[in-house]
């Protein structure tokens, strides 16, 4: 009897320690990033719709470009972060690296999905089809599959060290592979050159500025969301530990 009681108090003690970290700190960084993102968004939207010039050939739909490019960029960046965080976990064996990896994976998958959708819509307005197998779109699609594979794997394997290691390995292999995938699809497509999703000629400065602003804003938004998702991962892990210690 005495032994059983001891186990229960130990569990509660450990749980209390975990919760203490959460109580007092004011989320300064989050608030700053959140505010900057909000301001940036407002500025960006104004610039995208009012400041940037209308494209001579494509017309208004071209403005999707200012959303599509940052989203694709974030999708790529997100995966790079998953790979870096995964490597960090393999080396340091600290759970927090894994929280960052999972957070970035969820966020990156979201943005890459948006990139695919916006890319598809843009393609429809230019060429009349929802999809084309050009190098960039195809690589984005494959990256999407890798993201989904990562999320599925983590989901199936749960919150164990084995799961974190498996995810890290997948991310490292993936990030090395993506440039190779892009090149191989590129070579393949040069045999059947279609219209490229993207802009080939020199861009007027107002376009470049708008794009830069949009890019910066989305990156700020990404950082803000990253912190929130990281905290969420932390909370989920602590909740699981609490639940396990009570049972």
């Amino acid at each position: 009897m005495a032994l059983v009681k001891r186990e229960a108090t130990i569990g509660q003690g450990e749980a209390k320690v975990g919760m203490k970290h959460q109580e007092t700190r004011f989320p300064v960084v989050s608030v700053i990033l959140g505010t900057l993102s909000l301001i940036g968004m407002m500025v960006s939207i104004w610039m995208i719709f009012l400041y940037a010039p209308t494209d001579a050939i494509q017309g208004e739909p071209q403005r999707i470009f200012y959303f599509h490019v940052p989203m694709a960029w974030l999708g790529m960046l997100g995966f790079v972060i998953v790979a870096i965080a995964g490597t960090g976990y393999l080396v340091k064996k600290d759970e927090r690296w894994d929280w960052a990896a999972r957070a970035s994976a969820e966020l990156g998958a979201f943005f890459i999905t948006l990139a695919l959708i916006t890319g598809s819509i843009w393609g429809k307005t230019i060429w009349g089809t929802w999809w084309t197998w050009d190098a960039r779109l195809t690589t984005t699609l494959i990256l999407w599959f890798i993201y989904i594979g990562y999320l599925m794997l983590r989901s199936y394997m749960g919150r164990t060290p084995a799961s974190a290691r498996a995810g890290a390995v997948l991310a490292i292999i993936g990030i090395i592979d993506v440039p190779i995938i892009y090149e191989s699809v590129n070579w393949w497509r040069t045999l059947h050159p279609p219209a490229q999703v993207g802009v080939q000629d020199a861009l007027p400065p107002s376009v470049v500025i708008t794009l830069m602003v949009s890019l910066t804003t989305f990156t700020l938004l990404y950082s803000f969301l990253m912190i929130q998702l990281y905290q969420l991962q932390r909370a989920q892990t602590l909740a699981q530990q609490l639940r396990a210690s009570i049972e």
Partner: protein
Amino acid sequence: MSAPYLEIKGLKKTYSLKPILRGIDFVLVQDECMALLGANGAGKTTLLRILACLTKPGAGTVRIDGLDIVREAQHVRHLVGFVGHQPNLYDELTVLENLLFFGRMYSVKHAPERAVTLLQQVGLARRAGERVGTLSRGQIQRLALARALLHSPQLLLLDEPDAGLDDEGIELLEELLREHTRRGGTTLFTTHNFERAVKFSNRICMLGGGRVVYLQATSGLEPGGVRQAYQEVLR
């Protein structure tokens, strides 16, 4: 007083968020034989698996012959012989082929001769050419013991080695353990049988709630007394 062969300090391990080992500390010197008792789920198997380098400790340090089991796992594996719940043998290979394969994995010198000697010791010499899948439970357990001893390990880790053995097999086990100890080897085995715990070991340890709750020299102890202590400690 011999130098410590196995040193465990503050060993902790969590599986699926449940803490199994909550801080184990003890030391074994050479030619000791320790019996590990405890209820199912107390952490005995987990402890043995960590010592056999099958899984890593969550926290704490373990040294075998001065080597850290995490940093020098490959060296430690040479020093350890393990018999677990699974036979850890290949069903499709024959008795002899199994031993020869593991002989190659452990870089055992003169493996064929050593294998034949061991098979004779465990009484499986006549079955050398039979597939493991066709053997009885007791025969498989004997072969598992032979596999564990193949590379002449210094530390034997046996998880319920008496399971599935008939009387003859138990005698054989006792003989193997005594010979191992005579040669200066260390043994750590788990059992649920108090008679055997007292008979084979020179120290008895009990795990409860992931901790060491009882640690005594065996001399002077009776199986009945041990059973009583067990029930008291695990209430």
